[in-house]
């Protein structure tokens, strides 16, 4: 009876184990990725060394304990010994761990020094964290752009959306504009933030580094294989901390040059947009698009916000009030609140469009705001 019970329990265990193991093989990621940089591989090896040291010590200590639990029990009639110490044993089990730790400290130190010593960098990218998006500035090329959670994930992640995340490719790990970088190039990252602390992390590169307002942090990487690498913000930064992924697209040096040329062309186009005079229809259409990607996460699609933290725009006196004040609020933000200075991240034509949209849509105003109106407003 009992024997049968044990046997069937054992069988279930084996079957369960096999199932788990095969799923693990198929899709479940159990371990740290090796990654695609020298640093990430060094880190992976460090991780494996420490892990194995821990496993071996664990097997020895728990083994001794289990042996003792089986053999040295009162029900087996074991008589308790009365020893209270053993200098020899104590010296051994303090010295051996010290030696193990010293041995582990050497490779750890070497890897750390390499990471913290950026030399002969080929290019520099400035990363700025915002609630809840990233901005990438290619300092050598003179252009930059915002990178936000892509539309599909964003729709699916709304509470009660009814969309099954499994149907969304790269759910929560996809952005509208990925960071494009060349392979085999030493890239210096300068990281900072505009509002609260964020942390920029791509596991395949092997590190995360905090983006802190008022600080400029440094880190570097050299990606060895082309591909798309995904990560997420790793420092709690408010409501949508879980929804500001990082996507890095590493391409060949040639493709990178082409991409830069294309981006520069877009810059010229952008400048033209800021100079032209827009029709109201154009502004409203563009404004809605920008509102939904940049503003709706706090103020909500219907403008009702989530008071008190995120005020309603429908009720807002600023939206109904003088145009100048509204432009100032959007362009320079409200310090000390989650309302950031959108002048830093949107072009004048984008700002004009979104302000036009908000005033007409939520404030019952009949205004048309042109990029030149936005350019005319200064901070003080």
């Amino acid at each position, binding site marked *: 009876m009992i024997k049968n019970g044990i046997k069937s329990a054992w069988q279930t265990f084996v079957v369960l184990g096999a199932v788990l193991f095969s799923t693990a093989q198929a899709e479940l990621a159990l371990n740290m990725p090796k990654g695609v940089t020298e640093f990430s591989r060094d880190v992976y090896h460090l991780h494996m060394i420490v892990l194995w040291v821990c496993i071996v010590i664990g097997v020895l200590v728990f083994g001794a304990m289990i042996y003792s639990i089986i053999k040295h029990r009162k029900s087996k009639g074991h008589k308790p010994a009365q020893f209270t110490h053993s200098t020899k044993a104590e010296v051994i089990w303090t010295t051996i761990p010290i030696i193990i730790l010293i041995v582990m400290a050497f490779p750890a130190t070497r890897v750390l020094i390499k990471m913290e010593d950026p030399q002969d960098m080929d290019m520099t990218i400035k990363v700025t964290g915002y609630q809840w998006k990233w901005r990438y500035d290619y300092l050598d090329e003179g252009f930059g752009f915002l990178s936000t959670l892509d539309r599909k994930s964003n729709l699916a992640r709304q509470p009660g959306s009814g969309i099954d995340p499994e149907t969304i490719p790269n759910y929560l790990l996809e952005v509208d504009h990925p960071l494009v970088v060349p392979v085999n190039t030493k890239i210096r990252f300068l990281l900072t933030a505009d509002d609260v602390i964020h*942390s920029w992390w791509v596991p395949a590169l092997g590190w995360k580094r*905090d983006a802190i307002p008022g600080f400029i942090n440094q880190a570097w990487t050299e990606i060895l294989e082309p591909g798309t690498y995904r990560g997420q913000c790793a420092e709690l930064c408010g*409501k949508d901390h879980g929804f500001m992924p990082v996507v890095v697209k590493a391409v060949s040096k040639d493709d990178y040059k082409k991409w830069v040329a294309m981006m520069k062309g877009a810059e010229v186009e952008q400048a033209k947009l800021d100079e032209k005079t827009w029709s109201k229809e154009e502004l409203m259409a563009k404004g809605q698009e920008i509102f939904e990607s940049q503003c709706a996460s706090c103020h909500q699609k219907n403008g009702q916000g989530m008071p008190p933290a995120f005020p309603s725009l429908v009720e807002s006196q600023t939206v109904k009030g003088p145009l100048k004040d509204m432009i100032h609020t959007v362009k320079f933000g409200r310090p000390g609140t989650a309302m950031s200075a959108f002048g830093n991240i949107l072009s004048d034509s984008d700002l004009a469009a979104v302000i036009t949209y908000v005033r007409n849509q939520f404030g019952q105003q009949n205004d048309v705001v042109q990029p030149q109106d936005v350019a005319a407003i200064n901070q003080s």
Partner: protein
Amino acid sequence: MSHATTHEHDHHDEKPKGFVKRWLLTTNHKDIGTLYLIFALIMFFVGGAMALIIRLELFQPGLQFVQPEFFNQLTTVHALAMIFGAVMPAFVGLANWMIPMMIGAPDMALPRMNNWSFWIMPFAFAILLSTFFMDGGAPAAGWTMYPPLVLQGGKNVAFMVFAIHLMGISSIMGAINIIATVLNMRAPGMDFLKMPLFVWTWLITAFLLIAVMPVLAGAVTMILTDHYFGTSFFNAAGGGDPVLYQHIFWFFGHPEVYILILPSFGVISEIIPVFARKPLFGYTAMVYATASIAFLSFIVWAHHMFTVGMPLGGELFFMYATMLIAIPTGVKIFNWVSTMWQGAMTFEAPMLWAIAFVVLFTIGGFSGIMLAIAPADFQYHDTYFVVAHFHYVLVTGAIFAIIAAVYYWLPKWTGHMYNQKLAKWHFWLSVISVNVLFFPQHFLGLAGMPRRIPDYATQFAEFNMISSIGAFVFGFSQLLFVYLIWKTVKGGEKATSKVWEGAKGLEWTVPSPAPHHTFQDNAPVNDADLAHGGAH
């Protein structure tokens, strides 16, 4: 003689009548201990309920139950409730009940302050929990309360800060009381190196508390003035420094994690020798290891900040110092195993929990060593790997030790033996489910899942589901614990004074239940009654 004892017994058992006199105005260490323990148990369920809502939301990808904003409030208050509401008060409760009895003192040295330090706590938590019902909701910046994010909180900032001030005042008073009691109230013959380890570890913990609670109070006060009075301690735009906050917080925070675990070391060092029927191995080494862990805990704080961009020298220093902590911690573990070695073990409930503690706390220590390796921490930091680490040391460490202590001393408190079978059910359900709950979180973290997120990418779905199942089984198993305590308070087989066959120490020389007042005549201590009476 016999007349004298009965008379004495009556007098000793004289409890004040009426709820107000008995509980509100009490100065009795046992009653205050009971109050602390009940409060801790309630907060354990309050924090646990929040954890279950969190795990419910994380059961599958997508947002099903809560808004992200509320999710962040839950993680923040869950941690504050568990750390300051459950674990710390539970250990203060154990200290109150047991320290006077273990050192042969009639009561705590400062009984009125003792009453005050308990009765602050319900108010502190009423203030903190009331923020859930305000507009803007509860604090949502994590229990670490990093600025500038925490400054975006609305009204709750003031409530959170004042609640923490109150908890800090309570802890400091509790700590002063314990130090005063241990230093001044030991019965003649109870030398320092004869004290039980639970008393030793608490003495050292009390010094840690006095050293770091004011630091936390200072940090949150600066948050308060930054928020309401226009100072810029942590506001870069005003010339302040957000990283400074992290240094101050973790200068409190790392010793704090040892405040949560050192008394557990004490509990386990009491229990294992009793059920192995063999003296504790390396008593003096245990005392010194505790003291060196306490010292080292002050110089490792920035291992929580490897990714903030410290200079290389700083990173190396904090990496080496953190690795060093593994040595005294290892000594403790080896000593517990050696105590079991060649003993004559039995496996009543306290021993089962103690053994689980040794194994599972060690697993938490292993992940701790991994986290200490700074370059690898660039990957681990702020992921579920860290969540797994600190739940192994806190749940299967601190909480398991508290449960072990309750099973160990409950017959002494109530005078009744409890149902061993039920206690074993509680143990096995908990120990299996807690691993189902937390072990897969190691994998999640390594595979790249950040902590403090309400929704996740689909490749994390399987392990999150497993973890949530574990959480629900673990959570509901704890109802058994409450039921068992309730039954034991109400009745059960009479407990002897000694309760456990291998028990040694002064608390086992008084009747069970322990009379309301013990050791009023300060009789000299007899070495043979002590666990560490002999030479070492």
